[in-house]
């Protein structure tokens, strides 16, 4: 296709002012907006976690009323899942998918703009749901992020706003997923066949497919909840012939694969970082790709392991147990492949690599507690205790969040054109990792000792573990100020980054992103590169 001269002129410099961002169709600008949005939400969601830990520092009711406490528990989870990890992963996909596959932009740039700008709208709705109870809007949403009825039927107006938040987030995610999947399938540079793709691209392809399959189940579930609340239906009301457990199935049909939506992009990030700093090609590339595919399929059919206590038939329970335990096969294979990538490599330990190593160790630990939880008879004891809280924070903080931190440090030189301060990066790594472990390791013990989740006040027998946990949480939370400082410092200046700032960056992959300048031009790959 031919392009007009005016169109060519338009390409030279980015538009200026507010309009550049509001009307942006540029994948780099939209990627940046996604990342900034998730960083802001990280502080809001993290602030809520700090309030929760402050309340739990000592038994009794110190700062928060019971309903407000559980409202914070609910909103903390929703922000961290939908406001932090998913947008940050989508931001990285926006930046890196076109650069890694040699495409000029995303396949659907206007859709890209819409899927980002739905997020701030959703965030406003979510904040309103927290605020309305203070102005006579009824009981806060005190259900936890699972929104189980009948309790969610009792909540006030905040629940309706939360349902609309879920709808908005769902539309945003589905649009972003469609865009990314389309880009990966259609926009690859000539010669870049599927089995040459960097692992990050494969990870996002699977994530996108997964999102498109699961988000409608959540949207349907919360819409039925809305109808039960206001339009006299009784989908979930036993007294009207409905079934409270039906909602749990709908929620977890979305909720369990959602865990892989959060994890896979970070697995993809590890797949580029580990070979880079081991100076050795990724071990078992094919089995990693197939492993992710198997994980996606298995992940879709094991949702009820979140609800062993509802009293399913013995056959159904055994099916869900065996399916869940089998997930350890693809996950074990992935971690094993990363470990063998390091084996007989020549490792250096820059911040991204430190995070990668810590992720593999801590995520292995989350995997082993995951198998413990998958075992039905034992889960009938663990269920709804702090043991579960400890398990999923070990899975999601290293597995998803730290993977994204590693990605930020890894690609920041490419994005900004400046090297970050390596010493500060390492301090941040140690600070945040120690804080994280101090927070969540003791929660395994308080859970086994009998402390249930989502309680605002606890018996004195749990006091020591909770105090260690709270102190750890404050250390962990505070470390993020350094994170922001490092990012701002790198954006504003610093040592000039080379086009390929990491020695081993191209080993085993086409490495198209490293052929561009740092930072890359506003419009890149207008002529597609060729991959041999």
């Amino acid at each position: 296709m031919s392009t007009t001269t005016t169109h060519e002129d338009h390409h030279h410099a980015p538009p200026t002012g507010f309009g550049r961002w509001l009307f942006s169709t540029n994948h780099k600008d939209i990627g940046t907006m996604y990342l900034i949005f998730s960083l802001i939400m990280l502080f809001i969601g993290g602030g809520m976690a700090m309030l929760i830990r402050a309340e739990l520092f000592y038994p009794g009711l110190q700062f928060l009323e019971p309903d407000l406490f559980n409202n914070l528990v609910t909103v903390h989870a929703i922000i961290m899942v939908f406001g932090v990890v998913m947008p940050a992963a989508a931001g990285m996909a926006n930046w890196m998918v076109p650069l890694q596959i040699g495409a000029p932009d995303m396949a659907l740039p206007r859709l890209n703009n819409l899927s980002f700008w739905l997020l701030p709208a959703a965030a406003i709705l979510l904040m309103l749901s927290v605020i309305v109870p203070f102005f006579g809007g009824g009981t806060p949403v005190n259900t936890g992020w699972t929104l189980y009825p009948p309790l969610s039927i009792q909540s006030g107006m905040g629940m309706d706003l939360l349902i609309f938040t879920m709808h908005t987030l769902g539309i945003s995610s589905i649009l972003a997923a469609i865009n990314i999947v389309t880009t990966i399938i259609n926009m690859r540079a000539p010669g870049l066949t599927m089995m040459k793709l960097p692992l990050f691209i494969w990870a996002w392809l699977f994530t996108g497919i997964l999102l498109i399959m699961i988000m409608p189940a959540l949207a349907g579930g919360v819409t039925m909840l809305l109808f039960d609340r206001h339009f006299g239906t009784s989908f979930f009301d036993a007294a009207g012939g409905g079934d409270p457990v039906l909602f749990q199935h709908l929620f977890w049909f979305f909720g369990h694969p959602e865990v892989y939506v959060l994890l896979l992009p970070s697995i993809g990030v590890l797949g580029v970082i580990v070979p880079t700093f081991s100076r050795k090609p990724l071990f078992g590339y094919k089995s990693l790709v197939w492993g992710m595919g198997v994980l996606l399929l298995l992940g879709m059919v094991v949702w009820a392991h979140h609800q062993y206590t509802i009293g399913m038939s013995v056959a159904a329970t055994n099916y869900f147990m065996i399916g869940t335990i089998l997930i350890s096969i693809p996950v074990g294979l992935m971690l094993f492949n990363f470990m063998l990538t390091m084996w007989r490599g020549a490792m250096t330990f820059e911040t991204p690599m430190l995070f990668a190593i810590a992720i593999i160790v801590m995520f292995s630990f989350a995997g082993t507690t995951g198998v413990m939880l998958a075992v039905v008879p034992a889960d009938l004891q663990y269920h709804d205790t702090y043991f579960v809280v400890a398990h999923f924070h070990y899975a999601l903080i290293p597995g998803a969040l730290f993977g994204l931190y590693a990605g930020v440090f890894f690609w920041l030189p490419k994005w900004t054109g400046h090297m970050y301060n390596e010493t500060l990066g390492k301090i941040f790594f140690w600070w945040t990792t120690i804080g994280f472990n101090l927070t969540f390791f003791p929660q395994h013990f308080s859970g086994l000792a009998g402390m249930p989740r989502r309680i605002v006040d606890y018996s004195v027998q749990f006091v020591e573990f909770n105090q260690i946990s709270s102190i750890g949480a404050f250390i962990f939370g505070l470390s993020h100020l350094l994170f922001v400082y490092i990012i701002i410092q790198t954006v504003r200046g610093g040592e000039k980054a080379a086009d390929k700032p990491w020695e081993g960056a191209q080993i085993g992959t086409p490495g198209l992103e490293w052929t561009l300048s740092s930072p890359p031009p506003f419009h890149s790959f207008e002529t597609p590169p060729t991959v041999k």
Partner: protein
Amino acid sequence: MSNRFLKPCTAFALPSLLLTSGAVLAEYKFNFPEPVSPVTKEVFDLHMMTSAVALIIMVLVTIFFVYSIYKFRKSKNYEPDQEFHKGWFGTWSWALVPAIVLGIDLTIAGSASSTFDLIEDKTPADLTVKVTGSQWKWTYEYMEDDVKIVSTLLPKEEAGELYLRTVDNPLVLPTDRRVRFLHTATDVLHAWWVPAIAVKKDSIPGYINETWTIIEKEGNYHGQCAENCGTGHAFMPIQVNAIAGEEFDTWMSKQKEIKLAKMAEAASGKVWALDELMTKGEELYNKNCSACHKPDGSGIPPVFPPLKGSAIALGDVSKHLEVVIKGASGTAMAAWGNQLDDLELAAIITYERNAWENNTGDAVQPSDVKAAR
């Protein structure tokens, strides 16, 4: 208001005292409480087995990392093996690794499955207790003996160190007899969990779930509601007193006598004075109603409305009777008609109409309740 600012100060001063307190350290636990029934013992062994597998895996992973980080580093001029992934191991690891993991998985699943069969064992029980969760109390019904216990949180002043773990009327069970629990709920989800004696299954409105136990050791066992049930979720503990069989039989016949005496009193047709009803009513109100409507009648608006100065408590008695006996549909208000007898309902309604400056002067009689049913 000042109270809210003072509390955080004590919160930071007291922990050091607590840490040195021997009584608390005695309660300091890392693991499940000692299991005392066949089911929980077997589950405990399974838990220890999977924990050991987890520990071994973590030890191996750690050894791998310590060795790799020590050996394969650029600073030691280690030359990376670029062909490693192409060797026989690189070619077959995709099959070898899953085979090893599958072996571990099937071992665990096999032993889990047999434990699960024990949990689901449906041998007839000696005793059936229906456990009903409501916001925020537990009701226990001994099905064979037709005796009912309502169990609520014991206030801090009386519970001391066991606050949030102990109740006013614990569930009393015999040792060495097979007890079947039937779990259900009246309003939202709850979960009855006493880890030492039985595994948990959710209490779900419209469902009946089943667990069982044979308690092998006398003693007091504690637990808590495990499924989030709203405002009072942290405040509905569980306590089980396990006593020897004969002792239990004596206790049970006493409960039956008390129940018969109460029924006789309620049916006696006696006209009760306002004072008598108020005394009875206050006790019953605090036990049954105050979790939601608060001891001072202020409620937790808007879900649980205040009773102090409310239109129903000050208005027509028949409307008040109807709401309490039949509940209010579409709200959180339960129907109390089947849960309490005529005298108890009369006392509670009288109390609500005269306490907290409601002063209507109405003395509602058991006969009024009977007529309104």
